[in-house]
């Protein structure tokens, strides 16, 4: 049973997942830790994916594939054919930036899908990444959240421009559907609807 929610023309439903997500192999390198958590933020400038990992990533020979950004960048020649047949999408970590992705294609819309992997649901960088992809870079195709994706973040994901949500495997996607409708009329403009409430309605004084 699929755990993928897809938003099409404003209607959300649970649909089959036609994309195979390609994972990076585990790293042998010891991650640099600080205060118990992995240091993965821009200030450190650390490269979180090693060349060995990229080389060892197994890419399925057939079908639609979602590959890690680092693999797409490093193995572009090998993957370009799949992109041209509409069988290739990329996924990013929340700590990755968009500049390399942007530089790798003349238009982001070459990708039928871009996905962002959120390791912990409390990592709100995913919302800024979605917003930037939609509003700054005009990406029009499917934008997917996967990883620790739970129903109580869906409304924010939707507003940040995400149109599909792979709900964490141990939770029900059917239940999660309800939370997309938590609020009817949000205050501020955002990626899904850039117009703030004060421009959508004439709010007269009572």
């Amino acid at each position: 049973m699929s755990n993928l929610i897809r938003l099409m023309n404003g209607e959300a439903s649970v649909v089959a997942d036609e994309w195979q997500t390609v994972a990076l192999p585990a790293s042998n390198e010891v991650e640099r830790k600080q205060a118990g958590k992995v240091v993965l933020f821009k200030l450190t400038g650390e490269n979180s994916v090693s060349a060995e990992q990229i080389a060892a990533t197994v890419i399925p020979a057939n079908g639609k594939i979602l590959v890690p950004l680092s693999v797409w960048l490093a193995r572009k020649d090998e993957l370009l054919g799949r992109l041209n047949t509409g069988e290739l999408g990329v996924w990013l970590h929340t700590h990755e930036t968009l500049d390399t992705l942007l530089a790798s294609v003349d238009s982001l819309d070459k990708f039928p899908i871009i996905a962002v992997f959120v390791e912990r649901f409390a990592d709100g960088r995913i919302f800024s990444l979605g917003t930037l992809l939609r509003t700054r870079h005009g990406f029009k195709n499917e934008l997917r959240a996967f990883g620790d994706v739970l129903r109580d973040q869906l409304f924010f994901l939707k507003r940040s421009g995400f149109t599909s949500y792979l709900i964490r495997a141990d939770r029900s996607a059917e239940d999660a559907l309800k939370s997309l409708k938590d609020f009817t009329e949000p205050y501020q403009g955002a990626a899904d609807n850039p117009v703030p409430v004060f421009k959508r309605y004439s709010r007269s004084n009572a």
Partner: protein
Amino acid sequence: MYKYDKLDQQIVDERVAQYRDQTRRFLAGELTEDEFRPLRLQNGLYIQRYAPMLRIAVPYGMLSSKQLRKLGDIAKRYDKGYGHFSTRQNLQLNWPKLEDSPDILAELATVEMHAIQTSGNCVRNITTDQFAGIAPDEVIDPRAMAEILRQWSTFHPEFALLPRKFKIAVSGTKQDRAVVQAHDIGLEFYTDTNNKLAIRVWVGGGLGRTPILGSMIREHLEWQHALTYCEAIIRVYNLHGRRDNIFKARIKILVKALGADEFRDQVEAEWAHLKDSPNTITEAELKRVDKYFEPMPYEKLPAHNASFDAAIASSPAFASWVKRCVHPHKQPGYRAVTLSLKPTGIAPGDATTEQMHAVADLADEYSFGELRVSHEQNLILADVKLSDLFALWEKARKHGLATPNIGLLTDIICCPGGDFCSLANAKSIPIAQAIQEQFDNLDYLHDIGDIEINISGCMNGCGHHSVGHIGILGVDKDGSEWYQVSIGGKQGNDASLGAVIGPSFAAEEMPGVVQRLIDVYIAERTPEEHFIDTVRRLGVAPFKAYVYAEKEVSHV
């Protein structure tokens, strides 16, 4: 004050339904503790030492009498008959049940209130000057902009899960009373040379573990761009702020790590894309919201009132209350009144249900049915006629709300501390009480004059200890409670952070330590100096020498 329309009401009603379902799922075991935590926090619910604590939003400190009555009712029905006004101008209930919290929120929604984003890693309650709209030194009434910011920040999807909490303050006066330099973003409104409303933008200030004053990253921002500029700032922070270490996660750490110039450049680069985007505020929207903050229908009164003057002359107790608790007003014949929530023996900022009801009545009778909460944890009636002050004072006295100590040593800012808070290293309320008891002579208090003592039970600094003239910080040493003392902190335009005077003290030493600091001040002051001035002139050394000289002798 601002009144909800259908859209505002719908949002708080939908929030109640959403939170009710989240709580249900948690209690049914469908949500883990870790998953529920950010959800309940963004609704103001902490799990505390003895019970949950619910923090109710009082946007920029404004309350109607109807709302305060409801808060009193809620405190009685769901708590132990009292609430605690906090330094964020909010109201905290210390003993509600988790199971009751959805019902409490539903009751709040009936009076246009909520607990949205009063905690958690999101944009918190917007705060401002408690005298907004009536202060004689006010350039701009910042409340309409505060309300516009409140709406924009409510469930802002991009900033729903920031690295850490995010506090915005707005101010529109010459003398800053909103502590804008101690906030993640401080917006200082002023009128520019073209007579247009403009904003000075401060970023990266904060109290807590690493107290630091903000940096001004923009001298002049046209008001229309307030929201998009904040979006640029918070986006840079959301993407690049540290998430690996909770103690390094505030925006101040990012600003410091990058340097204010580099941070500004990144914000400006981001804003270049956001400028004039749809969240740009329109003239019509500012006008619409501003209408709710128009001046009250004041009577035209002379600047003086004979009965008031006579009461001052005949009642020294009234005169001393007026001196401390009554404040100037834009409108001739009117004054603002602080009702002190700091009588000796009561936790600073606490009010009982009866007191909340009494204040609501006083607001109806004397101040157009509105009141404010100050970040000094007192209640303010903003629009009282001179001729009503004596009657108001007599009634306030009956309810223990007229302690004439505003701005004096016993008007202590204090967090709930180890008696309630699970973060605290040490108790803070008993320290405040012991100090209040040490200085229980009013004449002496008036002689000491203006001084601010701020007490926090831990590094998080909810009691704003680092900007206290005397700051007291609870620390944990080998499992016992100690208190570190700093002097020379100050809020306001000439804000400064206090310097620690030396090794920490045991709880029972604290009243004596404060006494010795005051002794040095009394001995050294020039006639016009307040405590803070003397500290600034002399530095820490003479205070330190006297406090610790005594300590060494007593330990021999």
